[in-house]
């Protein structure tokens, strides 16, 4: 056997498990889902396996779905920006911590939310933000407000809870990018006359952009699909894509429409990630 062949065989062998898994549990179900999205449900809730675009047409003309897309997009922009603004400085601080012990503790703090079920974490926000919850209780007790402020069920509460749930997904890729940098690079910049701020803008930030792009893409994908957290803190009426799909599928039991909406969400997610990456890429090039 020639070397080229052996190499190709090795590559194939290494890829095979992932490919098999992906085909069995993602590609095939997706194809099935897509076929379902082309079916049609009559008013008697009988599903006809036609090939029609009626479900996609329903999405295109129904203003409820448009509000849902707009709501999800707004949430995504807020969450991605807040995660980046909160996550980057915190990650920078964490990676640059002097003592190894302290750094390890900080990492544990960042990762720890991932070890707890998202339902528990979201309920935590319900406990905090409810009218008789911790935050309102404190505000009233301190006399800052006379009546509890309505926080639960607002768009703001969804933003706050979602940022909390998704922050680790922004921080971990940035941490790995920052950690990969030779510490001598920052010293070199300062040695050449760059102030700490100039060093950050010209060297550290541009070189950690791959981490920023990865983290932002993850957060966008997860925000567009997030479902349990907004459902718990804001209820089923919040105009969000994933909640809409949930409602259509499990309350109206309109599986074909739910499948169609899922496909629209998939394409929409890819489009938003593509757009965000382009934008960050442009900023990156401007920096360099």
């Amino acid at each position: 056997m020639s070397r080229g062949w052996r190499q190709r065989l090795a590559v194939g062998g290494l890829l095979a498990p992932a490919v098999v898994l992906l085909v069995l549990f993602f590609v095939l179900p997706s194809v099935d889902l897509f076929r379902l999205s082309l079916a049609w449900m009559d008013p008697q809730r009988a599903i006809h396996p036609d090939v029609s675009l009626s479900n996609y047409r329903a999405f295109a003309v129904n203003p409820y779905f448009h509000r849902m897309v707009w709501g999800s997009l707004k949430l995504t922009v807020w969450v991605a920006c807040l995660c980046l603004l909160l996550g980057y400085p915190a990650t920078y601080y964490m990676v640059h911590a002097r003592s190894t012990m302290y750094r390890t503790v900080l990492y544990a703090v960042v990762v720890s939310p991932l070890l707890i079920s998202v339902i528990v974490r979201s309920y935590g926000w319900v406990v905090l933000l409810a009218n008789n919850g911790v935050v309102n209780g404190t505000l009233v007790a301190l006399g800052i407000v006379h009546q509890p402020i309505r926080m639960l069920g607002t768009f703001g509460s969804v933003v706050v809870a979602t940022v909390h749930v998704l922050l680790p997904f922004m921080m971990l890729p940035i941490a790995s990018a920052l950690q990969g940098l030779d510490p001598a690079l920052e010293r070199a910049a300062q040695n050449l006359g760059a102030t700490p701020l100039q060093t950050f803008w010209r060297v550290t930030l541009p070189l950690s952009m791959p981490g920023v792009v990865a983290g932002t893409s993850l957060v966008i994908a997860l925000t567009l699909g997030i479902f349990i957290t907004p459902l718990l803190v804001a209820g089923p009426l919040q105009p969000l894509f994933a909640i809409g799909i949930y409602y259509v599928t499990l309350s109206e039991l309109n599986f074909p429409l739910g499948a169609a909406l899922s496909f629209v969400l998939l394409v929409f997610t890819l489009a938003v990630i593509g757009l965000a990456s382009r934008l960050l890429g442009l900023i990156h090039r401007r920096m360099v």
Partner: protein
Amino acid sequence: MSASVDVDVQLRDVSMHYGSAPVLHGVDLEVCKGEFLSLLGPSGCGKTTTLNLIAGFLAPTRGTISLRGRVVNDVPPYRRNTGMVFQSYALFPHMNVFDNVAFGLKIRRLGSQEITRRVKEALSLVQLEGLDARPIRQLSGGQQQRVAIARALAIDPLVLLMDEPLSNLDAQLRRQMRVELRRLQRQVGITTIFVTHDQEEALTLSDRLVLMNGGRIEQVGTPVELYRKPRTPFVAQFLGHPNFLFGEVVDRRGTKMGVRTGQHTIWATCPDQLMVGAPVAVVLRAESAVLRPAPPPGSENAVPGTIDYTVYLGTSAEYEVRLADGSRLRVVEQIANGIPSYSDGEPVVVSWSSEDTIVLPGSRESMKGMGL
């Protein structure tokens, strides 16, 4: 030396602690304008710490650091105007060659024509003309090294600081860069402090070298001074791994002194204040002694022994000679025809002159842990 205008870098009684661990003890050092000074020593001796203190990346616990007569203890690294070449080169991977070299000039907000002119000038100094647009990833190790030097020189620094810059190159390239570095430094005339653990590098490059050990300066001098007249056994040992024999002073006659080691009395030219009875280390360089079948007439030191084994190196041979009292001496002999003059087990006489014998205060016990 006083703080004259010719001193570019001055350290006065500088000490440094990392937490409670001391890494530098009361270092005094002056580097003159245009001088090539090496900081040499084993790892952990404080040489890189000294460099980082001068660059401003570390702050001394005690003492003052001055650049051109101005105390810079409180000046941050980005206002010190030192040019550093890092061991890893630390080139910015997201920029091409031009932008790396131009970095410090852009920070200084020079005009674009001025920047282009100075980048070209720096790149031609390191013989990298025409590679401006090349990404860093596509450069060889030697080219990256040159870009790092050009980048440091482009800002016209007060002093060039180099932290083991050649240690990442292969042996042949390292030798070549050594010669080039020296030529470049002379041409630019820039004051240079060069950190290395490689004695050969330090000896070939430096005007003066500073040998450090355990956070202290052992000795400062020209390469010849340090090699010929080491002041401590550590300096003698670090430069050239010579033979050590231990004994005590038994006789003094005019400018000569006799040292009793084992069964032999060795004659040396008299160093300063060593009294009869003082415990001393006798240092003999392997290349200072010669081997003869019989004691040569008029030789001051002639000690019989037998060849234990031979390391054949083509142009030279290194013999390990066992003396009658069991001690050993290494002797290097240059051989013109490629055939060693002696074979293992042969009886020989090791002889050398009193001028080539270095006597230092110290006993075998006091030199434990120095790898002798």
